[in-house]
């Protein structure tokens, strides 16, 4: 159980080539959607304008080694462990969602392209795929019901959906139906397999095609902004006062 390729039941309806073509189309949707979001909302123009301004205000030039050290700190602290968040619950939920989603995506691509018709690919692939699904669901539902800031701080009921929820809702729906599709396919129910496969494909398509209107692309923007923030602190262009504590204070005690 949960050790077989979850995508082989799909080959009853569509060929392996169609599945692979779908994955390529979704990758293109992510690239095009992110580029559209960057250019249409002038996010790229704003970022370049800000970078030009801070470069002009820099007091000390940074060497390549300095930039490499900053990039490493950004990778370890801001990307790998979501150190930006002062609220530890939000931090843990994002860690779960991020690693879960990455595991889910990578194993999906490998199984669809390398073992599309093989019911028993290397055991590690379906196991990691299921672990990825579970991590995403635990982190995602925790975030959706208990940690969304408009629910916890703005007093909105958890069932009130706004445009900012498009990403989390489509992500949760896609991954939830992926798991349900796997379960009903293992149970051998042909009709239920078709229904859940349809819902899975629908919400997965919506997840990747809706990037210009959703928060999907914040996964790509946040690391860049975190890197730029650290560069500003290091080259003296930051407009913030110099911390009085030797290493500064990333998160106030009352916010953690």
């Amino acid at each position, binding site marked *: 159980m949960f050790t077989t390729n979850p995508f082989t039941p799909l080959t009853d309806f569509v060929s392996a080539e169609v599945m692979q073509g779908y994955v390529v189309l979704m990758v293109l949707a992510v690239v095009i959607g992110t580029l559209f979001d960057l250019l249409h909302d002038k996010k790229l123009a704003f970022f370049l304008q800000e970078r030009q301004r801070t470069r002009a205000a820099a007091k000390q030039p940074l060497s390549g080694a300095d930039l490499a050290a900053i990039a490493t700190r950004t990778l370890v602290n801001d990307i790998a462990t979501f150190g930006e968040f002062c609220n530890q619950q939000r931090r843990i939920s994002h860690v779960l969602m991020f690693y879960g989603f990455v595991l889910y995506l990578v194993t999906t691509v490998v199984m669809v392209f390398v073992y599309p018709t093989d019911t028993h690919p290397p055991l590690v692939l379906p196991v990691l795929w299921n672990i990825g699904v579970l991590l995403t669901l635990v982190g995602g539902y925790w975030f959706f019901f208990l940690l969304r800031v408009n629910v916890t701080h703005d007093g909105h009921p958890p069932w009130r959906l706004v445009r900012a929820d498009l990403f989390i809702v489509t992500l949760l729906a896609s991954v939830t139906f992926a798991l349900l599709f796997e379960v009903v396919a293992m149970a051998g129910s042909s009709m239920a397999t078709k229904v859940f496969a349809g819902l899975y494909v629908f919400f997965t398509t919506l997840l990747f095609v809706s990037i210009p209107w959703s928060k999907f692309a914040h996964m790509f923007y946040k690391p860049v902004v975190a890197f730029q923030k650290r560069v500003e602190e290091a080259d003296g262009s930051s*407009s913030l006062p*110099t911390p009085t504590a030797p290493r500064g204070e990333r998160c106030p005690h009352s*916010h953690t």
Partner: protein
Amino acid sequence: MPTFTYMTRCDGCGQCVDICPSDIMHIDPVYRRSYNIEPNFCWECYSCVKACPQHAIDVRGYADFAPLGHSVRVLREEASGTISWKIRYRDGREKAFSFPIRTTPWGSIKPPFEYAAPDAAALNSPLLAHEPEMLKVDTLPTLRTAAEPA
């Protein structure tokens, strides 16, 4: 000049929503980041600017100490108990100030809800709750009634 949020820096933690005395800092339904829903009602009290852990909220300072084209940023550090200001003028000059916020450790002051509720009869007293002991004095002057001798 009312508060505004740098959307790229905000991580949507909600601290500004909680602290705003005018209840005008809310969460944007499109980006799930904070924004000022009613700039006309902003007191420019700087509460949200100081509370924001990402330093994502800014306010243009008053013209009597910082003319147009300047930037005024503030940094609150609980651990060291300081608040620091940096003004950068448009000609590039900078002024920096640091002040102590308090002399006791963070969290060491007993909050009001930990005190016993005052007796209902105290409503007839001109003193406020827990006066005069909270003011660390023995007695406070009170109004005399007309019948009382001077």
